């Protein structure tokens, strides 16, 4: 039995349908991240699980209970909001204990649980402060504390890090991961940041326009994106997607650029098929600056248009077969604009998508 189960869940506002009958099973103690661009329906889905939005059709179960018509308070879930939603007129102690107080817990239990949560999150010394006296990171911790004191069946996080600065975001991301290891509860986490999704999730759910595009482990969705949308969305910088055509055993990118069809994909393509070739920047590297140890390599010459030094690597912008592409130079040296470099494409990492459907040729 799943901790949370969505079955053909539809959400419509009047005639406008924004979530189109999605199915999702979330296991106990699993950390699931819903990710996608703005307007993809991820927050709406989370709010439907929370009970803050009615569902138009379908079923949502939390544990073994059908919760379609239950108000949020009866769903035994906690939620961390994007703007923290701390009660401004209460101090941290009262914020943390509010849910328990409403539930009619005795003061001794409230105090114990508040102290326990405060200790886990390292906010014991902040208990008497009001939210206005806290920094962004501290507010975030209090918001998480408020979620964990009630020992709910599931935590729901709605873009909890998007109001923090870049450094704090990375720090809090780690803390959320640690928190999950400590409290071992089911988590549904919404973000538009694919790095957050990759680093936090046991499984990622990639959404677009109210549909689920792919569900899988971070490794799975990164290595085996089912379509061009997932391929372009997961990974930073994004995968290079180049229209191409299959001619015999070659993927023809343009009249003068072709690479061999990798052995593992040969069975999935046919001669003359229109495809989109997907190459991650990490898999397209100048000779001597790659990370791949494989003999299945294709060679292309690229003219450097822009080089961005990132420290351990340099991102190189160029054009391949008339399309802007990005490659990576690991262990970088100085690169001049206009310089021509010989690149190697790791063929065992090459992706091919059906140009008509956008789906991976492997997915059929």
């Amino acid at each position, binding site marked *: 039995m799943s901790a949370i189960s969505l079955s053909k869940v539809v959400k419509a506002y009047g005639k406008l349908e924004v979530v189109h009958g999605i199915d999702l099973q979330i296991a106990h103690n699993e950390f699931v991240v819903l990710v996608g661009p703005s307007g993809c329906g991820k927050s709406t889905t989370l709010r439907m699980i*929370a009970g*803050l939005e009615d569902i138009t059709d379908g079923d949502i179960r939390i544990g073994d209970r059908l919760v379609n018509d239950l108000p949020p*308070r009866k769903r035994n879930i*906690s*939620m961390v909001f994007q*703007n923290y939603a701390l009660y401004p007129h209460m101090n941290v102690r009262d914020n943390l204990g*509010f849910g328990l107080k409403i539930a009619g817990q005795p003061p001794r239990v409230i105090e114990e649980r508040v102290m326990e949560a405060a200790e886990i999150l390292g906010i014991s010394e902040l208990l008497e402060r009001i939210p206005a006296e806290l920094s962004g990171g501290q507010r975030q911790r209090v918001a998480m504390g408020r979620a964990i004191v009630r020992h709910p069946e599931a935590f729901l996080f709605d873009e909890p890090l998007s109001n923090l600065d870049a450094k704090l975001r990375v720090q809090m991301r780690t803390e959320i991961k640690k928190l999950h290891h400590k409290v071992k509860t089911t988590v549904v986490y919404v973000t538009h940041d694919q790095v957050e999704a990759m680093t936090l999730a046991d499984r990622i759910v990639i959404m677009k326009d109210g549909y689920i595009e792919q569900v899988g482990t971070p490794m799975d969705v990164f290595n085996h994106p089912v379509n061009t949308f997932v391929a372009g969305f997961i990974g930073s910088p994004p995968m290079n997607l180049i229209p191409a055509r299959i001619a015999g055993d070659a993927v023809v990118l343009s009249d003068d650029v072709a690479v061999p069809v990798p052995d593992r994909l040969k069975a999935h393509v046919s001669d003359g098929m229109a495809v989109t070739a997907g190459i991650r920047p990490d898999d397209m590297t100048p000779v001597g600056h790659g990370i791949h140890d494989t003999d299945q390599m294709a060679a292309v010459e690229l003219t450097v248009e822009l080089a961005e030094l990132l420290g351990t690597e340099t991102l190189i912008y160029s054009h391949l077969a008339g399309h802007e592409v990005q490659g990576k130079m690991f262990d970088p040296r100085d690169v001049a604009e206009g310089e021509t470099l010989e690149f190697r494409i790791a063929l065992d990492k090459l992706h091919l998508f059906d140009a008509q459907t956008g789906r991976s040729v492997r997915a059929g």
Partner: protein
Amino acid sequence: MSRALKRQLRAIGLWVATFVLMVIMCVPGLWVVLSAFRPNREILAKPPIWIPENPTLNNFAKIFGIGDAQVAIPVLSYFWNSMVIAMTSTIIALFIGMAGGYAFARFRFRFKNSIFLGLMLFRAVPGIALSLPVFILWSRMGLIDTQMGLIIVYVSLNVPFTIWLIDGFFRQIPISLSEAAQVDGCTRWQAFWKIEFPLARSGIAAAGVFAFLTSWNEFALASQLTRSTDSKTLPVGLMDFTAQFTIDWAGMCAMAVIIIVPALILTFLVQKHLIAGLTFGGVKG
């Protein structure tokens, strides 16, 4: 002229202008208060006597009918009427204002904008313009010269304003606070009373003070709709000091002070909320 000097001159100019404005606003009030503590003779003296030469409480004693005073005006009845009418109409207007303001701020419903606009337009109609129709209606319904008659009028005068003000305050409170409270175990009603109401308290207090003062000070409609000590309010009671040939200025001023004091006390008591309430939008954003 140096820039510093210019800035200083401008500051001084501003101070002088502010002072003159304050004098213009305060002198009539001050005159009323000072006149409440002196005899008619001094009030009417030419040239005017500013500082009372023989301060006295006789004017107050007289209107309360204490001692050998002849004029007894039912001030206590007027005061009671004013208090009952102002308090009741304020409480009702606040409740409707809170419910309406919350609904406008939080819910989507048909004709929402039209209804809101309608309320605001109603607010733009001067009360006195409605006095004749109200008088005819009230007389047919037997509401003339009753506290209830005035309470209904004042509630309807105040409701658009309280809804408008309170709506603004609820809009400032992120909806996620109420949602967080509901996820934390509250019903919508509990979320309102425990989270949203305390946060909108300043705005509600401000709306309450304005509604109270409107009802407390209103004269035009009250003078049409009241007749006797059953319902006459303090501002209408002031007219008791005018006779065919004379006006008892001293008595009138003493009564004016009685009218001013509760309003001042109320404003003083809630001033913290009032200031927070009036500046909420500015400091929040």
